[in-house]
């Protein structure tokens, strides 16, 4: 007898209005995006939405029965809170389907000012235990938590029974090694903060250098992050995916993690059984072509599982960072 599943929401990234329309057309149940400023964790040049674009996008998505979630998930430093308050005010006025928050002050402002505005807890809040999640639910009426990418499927299943809100879990895309919302490595090297400015490894501080022997060196600020021999696939320099040495490892090694992407397509049925309400695809910084291919593939996979069939997934390896993929922490805690 086939197992029955509750149909999960497929939550997809959009860095631009065009990408949002692409994601909706490819079968996204919900699309998440941010404004063109520090109020979200993908504050990259050329990315994100003006308020007018968000309004038009809400119209497009709602006409096709898709939701739009707005990420206001960074941490306003004192003296700049107004920018985040404006973002919350606009989100409430335009009636986004939910707002994704990380900062306690922002969550408090939103919950007190707009009690009807649905709040999701961003992965940036770093709530990795039932107790932490319950704290946020009690304090701000959080309806859904986006889980850190560090829990196994078994742990997610257990967590599900211990918290009063829905679970959203990442299934595909870039996987950062550090606890989200708790990493100042970019600020340490560049002076721009992931938490306060919404940037990770900003392009303006990235440098590539070829040497005479065909080796390619990548740097963030003054720090060498990696060095690739000719022909090696060179990754974008992020500190947590670089190669370093230490007294215990005098040969270069990936001290934190290898440059690989998360792909949980094989674990989809397990995640759906574990009680995950929403499956999230990372990649607001990625192209429309990428969004289209990944969303369509996961739309089909989820529909296959729902129909009782084994998910036949297209090969997504070519789209992953470094063209290598992992199930990260989700399969086993030996990853830690």
């Amino acid at each position, binding site marked *: 007898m086939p197992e029955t599943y509750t149909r999960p929401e497929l939550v997809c990234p959009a860095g631009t209005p065009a990408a949002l329309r692409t994601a909706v057309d490819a079968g996204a149940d919900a699309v998440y995006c941010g404004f063109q400023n520090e109020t979200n964790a993908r504050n990259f040049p050329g990315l994100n939405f003006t308020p007018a674009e968000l309004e038009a996008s809400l119209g497009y998505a709602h006409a096709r029965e898709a939701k739009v979630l707005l990420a206001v998930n960074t941490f306003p430093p004192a003296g700049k809170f107004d920018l985040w308050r404006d973002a919350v005010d606009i989100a409430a006025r335009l009636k986004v389907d939910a707002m994704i928050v990380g900062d306690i002050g922002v969550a408090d402002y939103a919950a007190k000012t707009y009690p009807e505005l649905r709040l999701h807890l961003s992965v940036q809040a770093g709530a990795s235990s039932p107790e*932490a999640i319950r704290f946020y639910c009690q304090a701000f009426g959080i309806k859904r938590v986006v889980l850190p990418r560090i829990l196994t499927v078994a742990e997610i299943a257990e967590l599900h029974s211990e918290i009063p809100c829905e679970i959203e879990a990442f299934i595909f895309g870039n996987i950062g090694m550090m606890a989200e919302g708790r990493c100042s490595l970019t600020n340490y090297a560049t002076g721009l903060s992931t938490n306060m400015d919404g940037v990770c490894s900003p392009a303006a501080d990235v440098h590539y250098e070829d040497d005479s022997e065909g080796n390619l060196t990548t740097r963030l*600020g003054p720090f060498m992050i990696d060095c690739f021999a000719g022909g090696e696939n060179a990754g974008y320099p992020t500190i947590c995916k670089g190669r370093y040495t230490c007294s215990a490892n005098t040969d270069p090694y990936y001290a934190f993690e290898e440059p690989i992407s998360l792909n949980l397509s094989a674990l989809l049925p397990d995640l759906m059984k574990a009680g995950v309400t929403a499956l999230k695809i990372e990649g607001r910084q990625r192209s429309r072509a990428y969004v289209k291919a990944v969303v369509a593939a996961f739309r089909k996979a989820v529909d296959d599982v729902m129909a009782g069939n084994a998910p036949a997934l297209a090969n997504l390896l070519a789209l992953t960072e470094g063209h290598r993929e992992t199930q990260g922490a989700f399969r086993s805690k030996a990853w830690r």
Partner: protein
Amino acid sequence: MTVQQRPASVTLGPVLFNWQPEKWRDFYFRIADEAPVSTVYLGETVCSKRAPLIEPYYAEVAERLQAAGKSVVFASLSEVLSRLDRKLAEQICTAEGFLVEANDGSALLHLKGRPHHIGPLMNVYNERTVAFLAGNGAQNVCLPVEMPASAVGALCQATRDLNVSIEVQVFGRQSLALSARCYHARAHGRTKDSCRFVCEEDPDGLELSTLDDRKFLTVNGVQTLSYEYLNLLREVPALRAMGVSRFRLSPHTIDMVEVAKIFAGVVAGGLGVEEAASRLEAMKPSAPFANGFYYGKPGYTWNGASAV
């Protein structure tokens, strides 16, 4: 100046590294006897596997510190994930008779409605967050190490009517990231579960170098710290004027009693900043000083006092 300032003092953050339990105990005995600090934070904030190693000494260390007139605050675990983590966080938060410093969201649940402190590994960046946490019971907030002076000043200004004191780390390696994965174990080809406490080999952390041999970061279990030591000695008077009343030292193997004396001299005003700075420089810690975050610059950099 019309605003009444809180009395200022030097505090000692928790030992972040895996020190031998007896060395850990003796370190605090000496702090109790000799260091001019008002508050000492005790406890394992980085790894729940390490906690049982020092637990047998909590009582005598806390007693000795309190007998010396120092306040003792227990610091909670920063990355709470496994059953063991959760149990440890709950034990610390529900212990009778001690204040607790919360370092993650689970501690906020356990401590709700009771007086407590907020640790630097919590994200407290603005006045609205401080106000909310004060309503939850927070009396003291140690700000994240990456906060620039402009935000520290604005936060102090906007929270002066709340009954919350503001603390800032001014010495020691800067915590930059936390993870579920143990990088100490990884460096030795092990996992967190099979680590065999290899982190005990590095009492100031394991230094990582870039491939062109530049010292860069320091690994401490699931925590990543700066290579450089934060030194905000010259900035103490400015922080004091903003309204910061507590100045935190993060312990290293360097003579922390001497470090405490130097900072306490500047905080109290009896020791000139330049003389204090040259005394601190003469101690020659194993890595250079940095103060970049304070000036809104990269955290590894060293900036003259005129940079602000």
